[in-house]
Protein backbone atom coordinates (compact mmCIF):
# COMPACT_ATOMS: atom_id res chain seq x y z
CA UNK A 1 0.00 0.00 0.00
CA UNK A 2 1.22 3.46 -0.86
CA UNK A 3 2.18 5.68 2.01
CA UNK A 4 -0.36 8.43 1.25
CA UNK A 5 -3.10 6.26 -0.22
CA UNK A 6 -6.51 8.02 -0.03
CA UNK A 7 -5.03 11.13 1.60
CA UNK A 8 -5.95 14.57 0.30
CA UNK A 9 -2.93 16.88 0.45
CA UNK A 10 -2.51 20.59 -0.22
CA UNK A 11 0.99 21.89 -1.01
CA UNK A 12 1.42 25.66 -1.26
CA UNK A 13 4.19 27.33 -3.25
CA UNK A 14 4.59 24.42 -5.67
CA UNK A 15 5.58 26.34 -8.82
CA UNK A 16 9.31 27.01 -8.46
CA UNK A 17 11.68 24.68 -10.26
CA UNK A 18 13.74 23.26 -8.75
CA UNK A 19 11.86 24.02 -5.57
CA UNK A 20 10.82 22.33 -2.36
CA UNK A 21 7.05 22.60 -2.93
CA UNK A 22 7.30 21.01 -6.34
CA UNK A 23 9.56 18.22 -5.07
CA UNK A 24 7.20 17.56 -2.16
CA UNK A 25 4.17 17.43 -4.47
CA UNK A 26 5.95 15.01 -6.80
CA UNK A 27 7.01 12.80 -3.90
CA UNK A 28 3.44 12.77 -2.56
CA UNK A 29 2.18 11.88 -6.03
CA UNK A 30 4.49 8.86 -6.08
CA UNK A 31 2.73 7.72 -2.90
CA UNK A 32 -0.73 8.13 -4.44
CA UNK A 33 -1.92 11.24 -2.59
CA UNK A 34 -4.82 13.19 -3.99
CA UNK A 35 -3.09 16.47 -4.63
CA UNK A 36 -3.93 20.13 -4.70
CA UNK A 37 -1.03 22.44 -5.50
CA UNK A 38 -1.20 26.22 -5.33
CA UNK A 39 0.97 29.22 -6.11
CA UNK A 40 0.77 32.77 -7.44
CA UNK A 41 3.05 31.79 -10.35
CA UNK A 42 0.45 30.20 -12.62
CA UNK A 43 2.84 29.30 -15.40
CA UNK A 44 5.20 27.42 -13.07
CA UNK A 45 2.25 25.81 -11.36
CA UNK A 46 0.92 24.48 -14.63
CA UNK A 47 4.33 23.00 -15.44
CA UNK A 48 4.46 21.32 -12.01
CA UNK A 49 0.96 19.92 -12.57
CA UNK A 50 2.06 18.47 -15.91
CA UNK A 51 5.03 16.73 -14.23
CA UNK A 52 2.66 15.25 -11.67
CA UNK A 53 0.15 14.14 -14.30
CA UNK A 54 3.00 12.43 -16.13
CA UNK A 55 3.18 10.11 -13.11
CA UNK A 56 -0.42 9.14 -13.76
CA UNK A 57 -1.74 11.08 -10.76
CA UNK A 58 -4.61 13.54 -10.81
CA UNK A 59 -3.80 16.98 -9.48
CA UNK A 60 -5.72 20.20 -8.98
CA UNK A 61 -3.65 23.36 -9.47
CA UNK A 62 -5.12 26.59 -8.28
CA UNK A 63 -4.00 30.17 -7.93
CA UNK A 64 -3.61 31.07 -4.25
CA UNK A 65 -2.03 34.06 -2.56
CA UNK A 66 -1.10 32.60 0.85
CA UNK A 67 -1.11 36.06 2.43
CA UNK A 68 -4.79 36.55 1.60
CA UNK A 69 -7.34 35.34 4.14
CA UNK A 70 -10.01 35.25 1.46
CA UNK A 71 -7.82 33.03 -0.74
CA UNK A 72 -7.39 30.58 2.15
CA UNK A 73 -11.14 30.50 2.76
CA UNK A 74 -11.76 29.88 -0.94
CA UNK A 75 -9.05 27.23 -1.24
CA UNK A 76 -10.18 25.21 1.78
CA UNK A 77 -13.84 25.46 0.78
CA UNK A 78 -13.03 24.30 -2.73
CA UNK A 79 -11.02 21.35 -1.38
CA UNK A 80 -13.91 20.32 0.88
CA UNK A 81 -16.37 20.57 -2.01
CA UNK A 82 -14.25 18.75 -4.58
CA UNK A 83 -12.31 16.30 -2.42
CA UNK A 84 -14.49 16.00 0.68
CA UNK A 85 -11.65 16.42 3.17
CA UNK A 86 -8.15 17.74 3.87
CA UNK A 87 -5.69 15.27 5.43
CA UNK A 88 -2.33 16.90 4.83
CA UNK A 89 -1.39 20.56 4.61
CA UNK A 90 2.14 21.54 3.62
CA UNK A 91 2.76 25.23 4.21
CA UNK A 92 5.70 25.63 1.89
CA UNK A 93 5.20 28.97 0.12
CA UNK A 94 7.90 31.42 1.11
CA UNK A 95 10.34 34.07 -0.03
CA UNK A 96 13.76 35.17 1.12
CA UNK A 97 14.46 38.90 1.24
CA UNK A 98 18.13 38.79 2.11
CA UNK A 99 19.34 42.07 3.57
CA UNK A 100 20.76 43.09 6.90
CA UNK A 101 18.18 44.36 9.35
CA UNK A 102 19.69 47.82 9.04
CA UNK A 103 19.29 47.85 5.25
CA UNK A 104 15.83 46.35 5.18
CA UNK A 105 12.91 48.65 4.48
CA UNK A 106 9.68 48.48 6.43
CA UNK A 107 7.88 47.36 3.28
CA UNK A 108 10.38 44.51 2.75
CA UNK A 109 10.01 43.48 6.38
CA UNK A 110 6.22 43.42 6.15
CA UNK A 111 6.32 41.38 2.96
CA UNK A 112 8.83 38.89 4.42
CA UNK A 113 6.74 38.31 7.54
CA UNK A 114 3.50 38.21 5.63
CA UNK A 115 4.53 35.62 3.01
CA UNK A 116 6.49 33.38 5.39
CA UNK A 117 4.65 33.61 8.70
CA UNK A 118 1.20 35.15 8.34
CA UNK A 119 0.59 32.55 5.63
CA UNK A 120 1.29 29.75 8.10
CA UNK A 121 -1.03 31.36 10.65
CA UNK A 122 -3.82 31.51 8.07
CA UNK A 123 -3.10 28.03 6.72
CA UNK A 124 -3.12 26.56 10.23
CA UNK A 125 -6.26 28.46 11.20
CA UNK A 126 -8.31 27.20 8.27
CA UNK A 127 -6.50 23.88 7.86
CA UNK A 128 -7.23 22.93 11.47
CA UNK A 129 -10.85 23.95 10.99
CA UNK A 130 -11.19 21.57 8.09
CA UNK A 131 -9.24 18.68 9.66
CA UNK A 132 -11.36 18.79 12.81
CA UNK A 133 -14.43 17.93 10.74
CA UNK A 134 -12.93 14.71 9.44
CA UNK A 135 -11.11 13.37 12.50
CA UNK A 136 -7.60 14.72 12.16
CA UNK A 137 -4.68 15.37 9.87
CA UNK A 138 -1.06 16.41 9.57
CA UNK A 139 0.28 19.92 9.03
CA UNK A 140 3.88 20.23 7.81
CA UNK A 141 5.44 23.68 7.91
CA UNK A 142 8.60 24.57 6.02
CA UNK A 143 10.87 26.54 8.32
CA UNK A 144 14.66 26.76 7.93
CA UNK A 145 17.93 26.38 9.82
CA UNK A 146 17.68 30.18 9.88
CA UNK A 147 14.78 29.66 12.29
CA UNK A 148 17.10 27.77 14.67
CA UNK A 149 20.36 29.75 14.58
CA UNK A 150 21.20 33.34 13.73
CA UNK A 151 22.53 34.00 10.23
CA UNK A 152 23.84 37.50 9.44
CA UNK A 153 22.29 39.10 6.38
CA UNK A 154 19.02 37.25 6.61
CA UNK A 155 17.22 40.26 8.09
CA UNK A 156 13.67 39.24 8.96
CA UNK A 157 13.88 35.87 7.16
CA UNK A 158 15.19 34.12 10.27
CA UNK A 159 12.58 35.78 12.46
CA UNK A 160 9.80 34.68 10.13
CA UNK A 161 11.11 31.11 10.11
CA UNK A 162 11.55 31.08 13.92
CA UNK A 163 7.96 32.23 14.08
CA UNK A 164 6.93 29.30 11.88
CA UNK A 165 8.71 26.92 14.26
CA UNK A 166 6.83 28.22 17.29
CA UNK A 167 3.48 28.44 15.50
CA UNK A 168 3.96 24.76 14.67
CA UNK A 169 4.44 23.85 18.32
CA UNK A 170 1.45 25.90 19.44
CA UNK A 171 -0.80 24.41 16.76
CA UNK A 172 0.48 20.94 17.73
CA UNK A 173 -0.39 21.39 21.41
CA UNK A 174 -3.70 23.12 20.77
CA UNK A 175 -4.91 20.30 18.54
CA UNK A 176 -3.14 17.19 19.85
CA UNK A 177 -6.38 15.76 21.24
CA UNK A 178 -8.15 16.39 17.93
CA UNK A 179 -5.66 14.01 16.29
CA UNK A 180 -4.11 16.84 14.32
CA UNK A 181 -0.32 16.78 14.25
CA UNK A 182 1.88 19.73 13.34
CA UNK A 183 5.65 19.80 12.81
CA UNK A 184 8.27 21.94 11.14
CA UNK A 185 11.05 21.05 8.70
CA UNK A 186 14.30 22.99 8.82
CA UNK A 187 16.25 22.65 5.59
CA UNK A 188 19.83 23.87 5.42
CA UNK A 189 21.32 24.84 2.07
CA UNK A 190 19.27 23.12 -0.62
CA UNK A 191 19.85 23.27 -4.38
CA UNK A 192 16.64 25.16 -5.25
CA UNK A 193 15.97 27.92 -7.76
CA UNK A 194 16.68 30.52 -5.04
CA UNK A 195 20.09 28.92 -4.41
CA UNK A 196 20.82 28.59 -8.12
CA UNK A 197 20.10 32.29 -8.68
CA UNK A 198 22.39 33.22 -5.79
CA UNK A 199 25.23 31.08 -7.19
CA UNK A 200 24.76 32.51 -10.68
CA UNK A 201 25.42 35.95 -9.23
CA UNK A 202 28.30 34.78 -7.02
CA UNK A 203 29.79 31.57 -8.50
CA UNK A 204 32.75 31.63 -6.11
CA UNK A 205 30.27 30.96 -3.30
CA UNK A 206 29.51 27.43 -4.56
CA UNK A 207 32.50 25.70 -2.98
CA UNK A 208 32.41 27.93 0.09
CA UNK A 209 28.82 26.93 0.77
CA UNK A 210 29.51 23.24 0.19
CA UNK A 211 32.40 23.36 2.63
CA UNK A 212 30.24 25.01 5.28
CA UNK A 213 28.08 21.89 5.40
CA UNK A 214 29.51 19.00 7.47
CA UNK A 215 28.37 16.53 4.79
CA UNK A 216 30.33 18.61 2.29
CA UNK A 217 27.48 19.30 -0.11
CA UNK A 218 24.15 21.05 -0.53
CA UNK A 219 20.98 19.04 -0.18
CA UNK A 220 18.61 18.17 -3.01
CA UNK A 221 14.90 19.12 -2.90
CA UNK A 222 14.03 15.41 -3.00
CA UNK A 223 15.84 14.92 0.32
CA UNK A 224 13.57 17.51 1.93
CA UNK A 225 10.56 15.99 0.19
CA UNK A 226 11.23 12.64 1.88
CA UNK A 227 11.10 14.36 5.28
CA UNK A 228 7.80 16.01 4.38
CA UNK A 229 6.46 12.62 3.32
CA UNK A 230 7.46 11.05 6.64
CA UNK A 231 5.75 13.80 8.63
CA UNK A 232 2.68 13.81 6.39
CA UNK A 233 1.99 10.07 6.50
CA UNK A 234 0.82 7.87 9.36
CA UNK A 235 4.31 6.51 10.05
CA UNK A 236 4.95 9.63 12.14
CA UNK A 237 1.72 9.21 14.11
CA UNK A 238 3.47 9.92 17.44
CA UNK A 239 5.54 12.84 16.12
CA UNK A 240 4.07 16.27 16.83
CA UNK A 241 5.28 19.67 17.95
CA UNK A 242 8.83 18.95 16.87
CA UNK A 243 11.40 19.76 14.20
CA UNK A 244 13.14 17.78 11.51
CA UNK A 245 16.46 19.36 10.61
CA UNK A 246 17.53 18.45 7.05
CA UNK A 247 20.81 20.26 6.85
CA UNK A 248 23.69 17.83 6.37
CA UNK A 249 24.72 18.47 9.98
CA UNK A 250 24.90 22.26 9.80
CA UNK A 251 23.30 23.10 13.15
CA UNK A 252 24.93 20.17 14.96
CA UNK A 253 28.26 22.03 14.64
Amino acid sequence: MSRLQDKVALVTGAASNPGLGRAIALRFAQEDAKLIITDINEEGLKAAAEDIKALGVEVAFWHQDVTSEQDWLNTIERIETQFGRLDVLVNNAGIAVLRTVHDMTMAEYDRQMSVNMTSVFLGSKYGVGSMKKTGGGSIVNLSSVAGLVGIPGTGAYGASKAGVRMLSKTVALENARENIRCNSIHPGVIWTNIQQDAIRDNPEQYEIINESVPMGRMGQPEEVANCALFLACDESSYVTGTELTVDGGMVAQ
Partner: protein
Amino acid sequence: MNRLSNKVAMVTGGANGIGAGIVSLFINEGAKVVIADNNADAGNALADSLGEQCQYIYLDVTEASAWQRAMQATEEVFGPLDILVQSAGISRPASIEDASLDDWREHMKVHGEGAFLGCRAAIASMKKNHAGSIVNISSVESIRPGPLFTCYGAAKAAQDALTKTVALHCGEMGYDIRCNSVHPAATYTPLLQQYLESAPDPKALEKIYAGMQPLNRIATVEEVANSVLFLASDESSFMTGHQMYVDGGVLAKPYPSGQGA
Protein backbone atom coordinates in the same frame (compact mmCIF):
# COMPACT_ATOMS: atom_id res chain seq x y z
CA MET B 1 8.25 -3.24 1.75
CA ASN B 2 11.73 -2.67 0.34
CA ARG B 3 12.97 0.50 1.93
CA LEU B 4 16.00 -1.35 3.32
CA SER B 5 16.57 -3.97 0.64
CA ASN B 6 20.13 -5.31 0.58
CA LYS B 7 21.05 -3.37 3.72
CA VAL B 8 22.87 -5.08 6.56
CA ALA B 9 21.68 -3.84 9.94
CA MET B 10 22.67 -4.54 13.53
CA VAL B 11 20.27 -3.73 16.34
CA THR B 12 21.69 -3.78 19.86
CA GLY B 13 19.17 -4.63 22.54
CA GLY B 14 17.23 -6.15 19.66
CA ALA B 15 15.86 -9.11 21.59
CA ASN B 16 13.18 -7.18 23.45
CA GLY B 17 11.09 -4.03 23.56
CA ILE B 18 11.73 -1.20 21.12
CA GLY B 19 14.78 -3.02 19.73
CA ALA B 20 12.69 -6.08 18.85
CA GLY B 21 10.12 -3.86 17.11
CA ILE B 22 12.90 -2.30 15.05
CA VAL B 23 14.27 -5.74 14.11
CA SER B 24 10.85 -6.91 12.87
CA LEU B 25 10.20 -3.73 10.87
CA PHE B 26 13.67 -3.84 9.27
CA ILE B 27 13.10 -7.48 8.24
CA ASN B 28 9.77 -6.46 6.68
CA GLU B 29 11.58 -3.75 4.72
CA GLY B 30 14.05 -6.21 3.23
CA ALA B 31 17.11 -5.77 5.46
CA LYS B 32 19.40 -8.48 6.74
CA VAL B 33 19.37 -7.99 10.49
CA VAL B 34 21.64 -9.02 13.32
CA ILE B 35 20.09 -9.03 16.77
CA ALA B 36 23.02 -8.10 19.01
CA ASP B 37 21.96 -8.67 22.59
CA ASN B 38 23.16 -10.21 25.83
CA ASN B 39 19.91 -12.15 26.18
CA ALA B 40 20.62 -15.25 24.06
CA ASP B 41 17.31 -17.00 24.70
CA ALA B 42 15.13 -14.08 23.64
CA GLY B 43 17.51 -13.11 20.82
CA ASN B 44 17.59 -16.62 19.33
CA ALA B 45 13.83 -17.02 19.67
CA LEU B 46 13.15 -13.76 17.81
CA ALA B 47 15.74 -14.53 15.13
CA ASP B 48 14.26 -18.01 14.57
CA SER B 49 10.79 -16.54 14.15
CA LEU B 50 11.97 -14.08 11.49
CA GLY B 51 13.77 -16.52 9.18
CA GLU B 52 17.11 -16.65 7.37
CA GLN B 53 17.49 -12.90 7.00
CA CYS B 54 17.75 -12.52 10.78
CA GLN B 55 20.58 -13.79 12.98
CA TYR B 56 21.28 -13.57 16.67
CA ILE B 57 24.79 -12.67 17.80
CA TYR B 58 25.83 -12.31 21.44
CA LEU B 59 26.86 -8.81 22.46
CA ASP B 60 27.56 -7.13 25.77
CA VAL B 61 27.72 -3.49 24.62
CA THR B 62 30.11 -2.54 27.41
CA GLU B 63 32.87 -4.92 26.25
CA ALA B 64 35.23 -3.78 23.52
CA SER B 65 36.20 -7.34 22.60
CA ALA B 66 32.54 -8.39 22.35
CA TRP B 67 31.94 -5.60 19.84
CA GLN B 68 34.88 -6.77 17.78
CA ARG B 69 33.63 -10.34 17.75
CA ALA B 70 30.04 -9.33 16.98
CA MET B 71 31.07 -7.10 14.10
CA GLN B 72 33.37 -9.75 12.67
CA ALA B 73 30.60 -12.34 12.88
CA THR B 74 28.17 -9.93 11.21
CA GLU B 75 30.53 -9.33 8.31
CA GLU B 76 31.10 -13.07 7.90
CA VAL B 77 27.36 -13.82 7.78
CA PHE B 78 25.95 -10.80 5.90
CA GLY B 79 28.89 -8.55 4.88
CA PRO B 80 29.91 -5.05 6.04
CA LEU B 81 27.44 -3.07 8.09
CA ASP B 82 25.13 -0.44 6.56
CA ILE B 83 23.02 0.36 9.61
CA LEU B 84 23.66 0.31 13.35
CA VAL B 85 20.80 0.94 15.76
CA GLN B 86 21.91 1.25 19.36
CA SER B 87 18.86 0.34 21.38
CA ALA B 88 20.46 -1.51 24.29
CA GLY B 89 19.86 0.27 27.56
CA ILE B 90 19.05 0.15 31.23
CA SER B 91 16.99 2.43 33.43
CA ARG B 92 16.84 2.45 37.19
CA PRO B 93 15.02 5.59 38.31
CA ALA B 94 16.39 7.09 41.53
CA SER B 95 16.85 10.61 42.84
CA ILE B 96 20.31 12.07 43.37
CA GLU B 97 19.97 11.20 47.09
CA ASP B 98 18.99 7.59 46.44
CA ALA B 99 21.10 6.66 43.41
CA SER B 100 24.34 4.84 44.21
CA LEU B 101 27.70 5.44 42.57
CA ASP B 102 27.36 1.97 41.06
CA ASP B 103 24.02 2.99 39.50
CA TRP B 104 25.71 6.03 37.99
CA ARG B 105 28.66 4.08 36.65
CA GLU B 106 26.50 1.33 35.20
CA HIS B 107 24.25 3.78 33.31
CA MET B 108 27.29 5.62 32.00
CA LYS B 109 28.90 2.35 31.00
CA VAL B 110 25.92 1.00 29.04
CA HIS B 111 24.78 4.25 27.38
CA GLY B 112 28.05 6.18 27.21
CA GLU B 113 30.78 3.58 26.75
CA GLY B 114 28.41 1.26 24.91
CA ALA B 115 27.54 3.89 22.32
CA PHE B 116 31.19 4.96 22.06
CA LEU B 117 32.33 1.42 21.31
CA GLY B 118 29.39 0.87 18.99
CA CYS B 119 30.06 3.95 16.89
CA ARG B 120 33.75 3.06 16.59
CA ALA B 121 33.03 -0.50 15.53
CA ALA B 122 30.28 0.59 13.12
CA ILE B 123 32.37 3.27 11.39
CA ALA B 124 35.20 0.77 10.84
CA SER B 125 32.78 -1.64 9.17
CA MET B 126 30.76 0.98 7.25
CA LYS B 127 33.92 2.47 5.75
CA LYS B 128 34.26 -0.71 3.73
CA ASN B 129 31.06 0.22 1.85
CA HIS B 130 31.79 3.97 2.02
CA ALA B 131 28.36 4.62 3.51
CA GLY B 132 26.12 3.96 6.47
CA SER B 133 23.64 5.22 9.00
CA ILE B 134 23.91 5.06 12.79
CA VAL B 135 20.76 5.59 14.84
CA ASN B 136 21.21 5.95 18.58
CA ILE B 137 18.11 5.47 20.69
CA SER B 138 18.09 8.24 23.25
CA SER B 139 15.13 9.55 25.26
CA VAL B 140 13.16 12.67 26.10
CA GLU B 141 14.91 12.30 29.48
CA SER B 142 18.20 13.44 27.92
CA ILE B 143 16.59 16.75 26.92
CA ARG B 144 14.36 17.41 29.90
CA PRO B 145 15.06 14.82 32.61
CA GLY B 146 12.61 14.21 35.42
CA PRO B 147 13.99 14.23 38.99
CA LEU B 148 14.27 10.45 39.16
CA PHE B 149 16.30 10.13 35.96
CA THR B 150 19.55 11.17 37.62
CA CYS B 151 21.71 8.49 36.03
CA TYR B 152 19.63 7.72 32.93
CA GLY B 153 19.20 11.34 31.87
CA ALA B 154 22.90 12.13 32.25
CA ALA B 155 23.96 8.95 30.45
CA LYS B 156 21.61 9.60 27.54
CA ALA B 157 22.83 13.21 27.33
CA ALA B 158 26.39 11.89 27.08
CA GLN B 159 25.26 9.61 24.28
CA ASP B 160 23.58 12.57 22.52
CA ALA B 161 26.83 14.55 22.44
CA LEU B 162 28.57 11.50 21.00
CA THR B 163 25.90 11.29 18.27
CA LYS B 164 26.75 14.82 17.18
CA THR B 165 30.53 14.44 17.29
CA VAL B 166 30.30 11.23 15.28
CA ALA B 167 28.08 12.99 12.71
CA LEU B 168 30.50 15.90 12.41
CA HIS B 169 33.59 13.71 12.26
CA CYS B 170 32.17 11.50 9.53
CA GLY B 171 31.17 14.57 7.55
CA GLU B 172 34.59 16.12 7.94
CA MET B 173 36.30 12.94 6.83
CA GLY B 174 34.10 12.73 3.75
CA TYR B 175 32.54 9.42 4.82
CA ASP B 176 28.94 9.12 3.75
CA ILE B 177 28.09 7.91 7.25
CA ARG B 178 25.26 9.68 9.05
CA CYS B 179 24.54 9.60 12.79
CA ASN B 180 21.29 10.71 14.44
CA SER B 181 19.38 10.06 17.65
CA VAL B 182 15.74 9.18 18.28
CA HIS B 183 14.10 10.42 21.47
CA PRO B 184 10.99 8.50 22.49
CA ALA B 185 8.77 9.38 25.43
CA ALA B 186 6.76 6.68 27.24
CA THR B 187 6.46 3.72 24.88
CA TYR B 188 4.30 0.63 25.19
CA THR B 189 7.09 -1.93 25.68
CA PRO B 190 6.72 -5.22 27.59
CA LEU B 191 8.70 -3.53 30.37
CA LEU B 192 6.21 -0.67 30.63
CA GLN B 193 3.33 -3.10 30.38
CA GLN B 194 4.82 -5.08 33.26
CA TYR B 195 5.18 -1.90 35.29
CA LEU B 196 1.60 -0.86 34.60
CA GLU B 197 0.31 -4.31 35.47
CA SER B 198 2.16 -4.28 38.79
CA ALA B 199 0.07 -1.31 39.93
CA PRO B 200 -3.09 -1.83 42.01
CA ASP B 201 -5.11 -0.28 39.18
CA PRO B 202 -3.22 -0.69 35.87
CA LYS B 203 -5.89 1.10 33.82
CA ALA B 204 -5.79 4.15 36.08
CA LEU B 205 -1.99 4.27 35.94
CA GLU B 206 -2.01 3.99 32.15
CA LYS B 207 -4.50 6.82 32.02
CA ILE B 208 -2.16 8.99 34.10
CA TYR B 209 0.75 8.19 31.78
CA ALA B 210 -1.33 8.81 28.67
CA GLY B 211 -2.62 12.06 30.12
CA MET B 212 0.93 13.41 30.42
CA GLN B 213 1.28 13.18 26.65
CA PRO B 214 -0.34 15.89 24.52
CA LEU B 215 -1.61 13.13 22.21
CA ASN B 216 -3.25 11.58 25.29
CA ARG B 217 -1.83 8.12 24.73
CA ILE B 218 1.38 6.16 25.10
CA ALA B 219 3.42 5.51 21.95
CA THR B 220 3.47 2.07 20.40
CA VAL B 221 6.75 0.32 19.68
CA GLU B 222 5.88 0.49 15.96
CA GLU B 223 5.67 4.28 16.08
CA VAL B 224 9.21 4.53 17.43
CA ALA B 225 10.42 1.87 15.00
CA ASN B 226 8.98 3.83 12.03
CA SER B 227 11.09 6.83 12.94
CA VAL B 228 14.19 4.68 13.25
CA LEU B 229 13.43 3.20 9.83
CA PHE B 230 13.26 6.69 8.35
CA LEU B 231 16.64 7.66 9.79
CA ALA B 232 18.22 4.30 8.89
CA SER B 233 17.03 4.41 5.28
CA ASP B 234 18.32 6.53 2.39
CA GLU B 235 15.19 8.73 2.67
CA SER B 236 16.98 10.77 5.34
CA SER B 237 20.15 11.11 3.24
CA PHE B 238 20.71 14.79 4.16
CA MET B 239 20.04 14.38 7.88
CA THR B 240 22.92 13.99 10.29
CA GLY B 241 23.60 15.11 13.85
CA HIS B 242 19.85 15.51 14.35
CA GLN B 243 17.85 14.73 17.47
CA MET B 244 14.50 13.39 16.38
CA TYR B 245 11.76 13.53 18.98
CA VAL B 246 9.05 10.87 18.85
CA ASP B 247 7.36 12.14 21.94
CA GLY B 248 3.73 12.95 21.21
CA GLY B 249 4.52 16.64 21.73
CA VAL B 250 5.86 16.34 25.31
CA LEU B 251 8.95 18.46 24.69
CA ALA B 252 6.92 21.20 23.03
CA LYS B 253 5.15 21.76 26.36
CA PRO B 254 6.40 24.36 28.81
CA TYR B 255 6.05 22.25 31.94
CA PRO B 256 7.22 18.85 33.21
CA SER B 257 5.40 15.89 31.81
CA GLY B 258 4.25 14.60 35.18
CA GLN B 259 5.14 12.98 38.45
CA GLY B 260 8.49 11.23 38.28
CA ALA B 261 8.52 11.22 34.48
